[in-house]
């Protein structure tokens, strides 16, 4: 196949390109330039473009740079800021996959006549009974199927995720064996456009923060926050609470009022989902529910956009993605209301 591999400048996508070459594909590398802002530390910085280009040279494949900065701004950064301004807790990496990597890049690949797009994500795309499945990675600790849950049949048919079949140790060994400069590069951790000053500093110039009062279940004022926009459901710290008492968690944010309660009060029986997408036909009934990128899946059911947990579970912050699995296969997902 004629494959366009998205090379972030990290070890996983470097090895993805190498594996595709081994498999006999006609491989072309590309790096997306997404963020020209102040960050030069996350993925897609100039230094990362250099790393990706050098790896492509070492592998002997052509490499191009695509500037998708506008799409990234409109599809990822602006919604991220707007979600925080509305008191929600967004997941920008998921929106980047939805709007940039598996939409804009895929359309670019179509225009250029490529048969498929590959990335270095740790997840598996497999075909069973003529249908495409999105499966957890072989390396459970590195599994990224959660952030890819929006991939549907037509997208999966054009997507290759070769490193999902390897453990990270093997991936690094492979890169080392090939002498790639990315072999020992640390995994990227943070949201790529958030700089050293962190989320608070990034948002401070883009959102007008609202000071808030912190109350307990009885309405008594017990603390204060400088910005309700930065408060997340389940948060314990930074609420100005007196020490000593049992741990208290944010259980609700209503306007400029942050309500705290015990762990029991944080637990809920259900979460309502918006913007649900399905890998294949919609399902209902029993599912495993994962509510964060590295969260432990819990048992539940899905029915009419409502997930009911088998046991009370920590409330999901509005804006977070909730992903539904059966076994190791992603079946769909949505955004917590």
């Amino acid at each position, binding site marked *: 196949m004629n494959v366009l591999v998205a090379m972030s400048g990290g070890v996983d996508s470097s090895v993805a390109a190498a594996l595709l070459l081994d498999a006999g594909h006609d491989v072309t590398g590309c790096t997306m*330039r997404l963020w020209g802002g102040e960050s030069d530390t996350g993925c897609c910085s*100039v230094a990362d*473009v250099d790393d990706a*280009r050098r790896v492509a040279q070492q592998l002997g494949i*052509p490499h*191009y*740079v*695509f*500037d998708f900065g*506008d799409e990234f701004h409109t599809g990822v950064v602006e919604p991220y800021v707007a979600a925080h301004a509305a008191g929600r807790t967004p997941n920008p990496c998921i929106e980047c996959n939805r709007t940039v990597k598996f939409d804009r890049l895929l*359309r*670019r690949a*179509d*225009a*250029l*006549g490529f048969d498929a797009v590959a990335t270095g994500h740790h997840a598996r795309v497999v075909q069973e009974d003529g249908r495409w499945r999105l499966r957890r990675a072989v390396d459970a600790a590195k599994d990224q199927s959660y952030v890819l849950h929006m991939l549907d049949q037509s997208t999966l048919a054009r997507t290759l995720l070769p490193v999902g079949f390897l453990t990270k140790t093997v991936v690094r060994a492979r890169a080392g064996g090939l002498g790639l400069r990315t072999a020992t590069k640390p995994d990227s951790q943070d949201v790529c456009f958030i700089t050293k000053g962190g989320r608070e500093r990034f948002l401070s110039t883009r959102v007008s923060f609202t000071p808030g009062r912190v109350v307990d279940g009885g309405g008594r004022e017990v603390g204060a926050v400088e910005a309700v926009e930065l408060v997340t459901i389940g948060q314990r710290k930074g609420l100005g609470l007196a020490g000593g008492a049992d741990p208290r968690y944010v259980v609700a944010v209503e306007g400029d009022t942050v309500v705290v309660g015990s762990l029991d009060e944080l637990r809920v029986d259900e979460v309502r989902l918006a913007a649900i997408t399905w890998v294949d036909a919609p399902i209902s009934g029993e599912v495993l529910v994962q509510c964060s990128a590295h969260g432990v899946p819990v048992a539940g059911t899905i029915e009419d956009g409502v997930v009911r947990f088998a046991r009370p579970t920590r409330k999901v912050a509005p804006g977070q993605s909730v992903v539904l699995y059966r076994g190791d296969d992603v079946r769909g997902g949505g955004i917590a209301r």
Partner: protein
Amino acid sequence: MLPWLTGRFGNPSGGHAVARAARQAVEEARDELAAVLGCQPRELVFTSGGTESDNLAIAGVDGRVACSAIEHHAVLEAVRHRGGQVFDLDAPPRDVDLVSVMLVNNETGSIQSLDEIDAPLVHTDAVQALPWLDVARAAARADLISVSAHKIGGPQGVGALVVREGVRIAPLLHGGGQERERRSGTHNVAGIVGFAAAVRACKANPPDVRAMRDRLATGLLGIAGCRPTVHPDAAVPGILQLHIDAIESEALLVLLDREGVCASAGASCASGAIGHSQVLRLSLGWTTTDADIDHALDVIPRAVAQLRRVAA
């Protein structure tokens, strides 16, 4: 160039026989280049290329600096770094000490006249003009002229700045005081010799591409929504820049590259990203053949059609 890279690598600033030979090669190159640029040999400062020449000109003069909005980044960023002014070509500033206007634009090929510029000092980036215009005449008004070897088929990494007698310029690089205290550093002897050889070749056998450029333009203007960004009569024949509706340059250039057509959109930059313009820039030179034009006329319309078909 080869002798100066193999056995005879003397430092031109030294005193012994090998060094003197290298110095002679540099000075012969200087004479040759000065004649082409219409300056005295002592007015020519060898540099590492167009960017350094531009920076030396902009940073080296006293007072307030300004440049046109169409300048190369090497001028634009040097002017911005000094807190200078960037102006539209039809609204030149008054009360500045140096105005910089490029002779030929690197993206469109447009030719600018320097004759009407009203400023105490004029700098011109003539990097793109060298193979196409009589720079000595076209830049006669300029006090400072930047040129670069690789734009005329010479090696990358060598250039020069003409500094007219009487123009005071502070050096960017301090050290051994080479180039009459205007640019310290050991000379790039092979590069300088190669620069002169390229100029000689260019004079002896000027690139004759106008007919090929016109054939290319006529053929490509048959594409719906395609127009030149500058009228070909107002541009040098070595550059043809086109605007093509409803395509993305970034995608078009990949398709062309895969078919063996090496083209650009705007200028080159560090990351290699091209952006969202609908612009295609084709360059022609000595090595361009009629077969290349045939190939481009075959590939480009097909690539545009493919992109429009998929987008539709």
